[in-house]
């Protein structure tokens, strides 16, 4: 199911990849419906609505019903993709996600759009840097954080093919297409090693992966061999990839999420139970001040310099 790996250095909005993929899947699978809460434009589903007007359910600005209607549509034989801003589809409807989707274990796909700090200037009400921590508690829900347009498309296809609850965290931040071998494949729960290295491992996902790649290339020039692992699936984790990362003796995780309970926390839970090594978790400390997303990345060290410093410092902690 892999496509030829893109090599362009252009920047992409992964929502476009989501929209194109769901339209293509819906052509072939009449069960597919989309469910939105007045979130057609922000989900880039205008094209879907034009092609399949009877297969889009818009419940209005009502996230509890948004998620619950998704569960009901699955009961009625549909394959629903429920799409809304990640901060609201998770936080506002968290009990529906818990009881109606995860605990009921139904075949519903939740698409968290414009996640992380994409709405930087709008402030913490509209940031979604808690979503993975909340959803990670639902052990049977697959959580995918794609890093680029190819992986977003593959994640949506994999979610459609999997029978059970899935959350895909989609970003509106411009990201480049990652370089991959032509035979690259995506599987839920399988991490992707983008750069090999032996001195440290950077484990990243989503919008942070391309930054991790750039840092590893820069560190190579100063003689540091840093591995880069794209941990696109946060649940289930690729525990073998994490165990292998401990063999490099130092791990830095990087995510567009709170440092509490997200990718870093998930990796740490595995590391302490296998082969404890020095770790550093990069992300946001909690509610963050007003600023553009790029300003926030720089302010909190989620940039090339900050990630590189974290790698050097963590290597220095090796015994």
């Amino acid at each position, binding site marked *: 199911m892999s496509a030829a790996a893109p090599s362009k250095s252009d920047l992409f909005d992964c929502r476009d990849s989501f929209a194109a993929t769901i339209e293509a899947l819906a052509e072939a699978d009449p069960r597919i419906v989309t469910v939105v809460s007045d979130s057609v434009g922000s989900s880039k589903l205008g094209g879907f609505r034009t092609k399949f007007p009877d297969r889009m359910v818009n419940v209005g600005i009502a996230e509890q019903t948004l998620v619950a209607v998704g569960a009901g549509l699955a009961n*009625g034989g549909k394959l629903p993709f429920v799409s809304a801003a990640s901060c609201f589809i998770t936080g506002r409807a968290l009990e529906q996600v818990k009881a109606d989707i995860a605990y009921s274990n139904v075949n519903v796909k939740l698409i968290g759009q414009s996640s992380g700090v994409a709405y930087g200037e709008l402030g913490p009400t509209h940031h979604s840097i808690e979503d993975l921590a909340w959803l990670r508690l639902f052990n049977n829900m697959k959580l995918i954080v794609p890093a680029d347009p190819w992986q977003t498309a593959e994640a949506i296809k994999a979610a459609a093919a999997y029978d059970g609850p899935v959350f895909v965290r989609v970003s509106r931040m411009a990201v480049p297409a990652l370089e991959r071998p032509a035979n690259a494949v995506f599987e839920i729960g399988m991490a992707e090693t983008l750069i090999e290295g032996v001195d440290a491992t950077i484990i990243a996902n989503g919008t942070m992966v391309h930054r991790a790649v750039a840092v590893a290339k820069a560190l190579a020039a100063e003689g540091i061999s840093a591995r880069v692992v794209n941990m696109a699936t946060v649940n289930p984790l690729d525990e073998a990839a994490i165990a292998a990362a401990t063999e490099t003796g130092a791990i830095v995780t990087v995510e567009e999420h709170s440092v509490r309970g997200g990718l870093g926390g998930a990796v740490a839970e595995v590391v302490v139970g296998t082969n404890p090594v020095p770790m550093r978790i990069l992300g946001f400390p909690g509610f963050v001040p007003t600023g553009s997303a790029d300003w926030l990345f720089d302010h909190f060290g989620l940039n090339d310099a900050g990630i590189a410093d974290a790698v050097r410092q963590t290597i220095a902690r090796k015994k």
Partner: protein
Amino acid sequence: MTSPVSNLRSDIAAELRAHALWIRRRSFQMVYEAQLGHPGGDFSATDILATLYFGVMRYDPSNPRDPQRDRFVMSKGHCTGAFYSVLARAGYFPEADLATYMQPLSMLNGHPNRNYLPGVETNTGPLGHGLPVATGIAIAGQIDKADFRTFVLTGDGELQEGSNWEAALTAGHRKLENLTVIIDRNRLQQGAGTEDTASLDPLDDKWRAFGWHVEIVDGHDHQQLLDLLSASPKGRGKPLCVIANTFKGKGVSFMHDNVAWHHGVPNKDQYEQAMRELV
């Protein structure tokens, strides 16, 4: 698929009374043995459940996920004494399993789990979850122009949850005539009357304003319930809201309309007295 409605409607009402009596006795035994449960609400909902399962709905317990089945969503998921009793009586699982109610590792949780028990459509317990899910089921039927109907039973205190009104807006907007909500209007919530807590009246006007067709019935009158719920929804052009006036603890003198029996459980003397009355 069973299709139990026939022309012999008075005979059916008599059968429904017999089913309801059995459900009350069996559910109260479950609560007594577990020393846990919500018997007051079990009894206010019993006649509605008996009518739906033995007079109205089409379903096949040997094929519980038949795509064309009528759906029932138990939004008042705490009233599992009555709900599990009716599912067992309908043939979804052996009646003997009821003896495991709330025991360790039992499939019969305090609140229903669809992955444990056939006949459960969605996991409920937290209030205000049933109608939104049932709305989604009904939308699937609407998209497919399917014949199945979707019924949801809510408590009345439960209507204080805003999620119900979100779903009521959407169901009214989409004119989901295949959807019926039945409100177990016993006028008591956990600790007090609904009207002394966050008043719901005029409840019928609220539903009409949301685009629903409203009927008010005696929720313990099997004939009224049967006539209303078994009528074809085709052409109504609106979802149906049935306000079923009921009494918490209906059927047992000392429990009747008594808020203490929301989650009160009987001692031996109370249990034996109730069983003498439930005949």
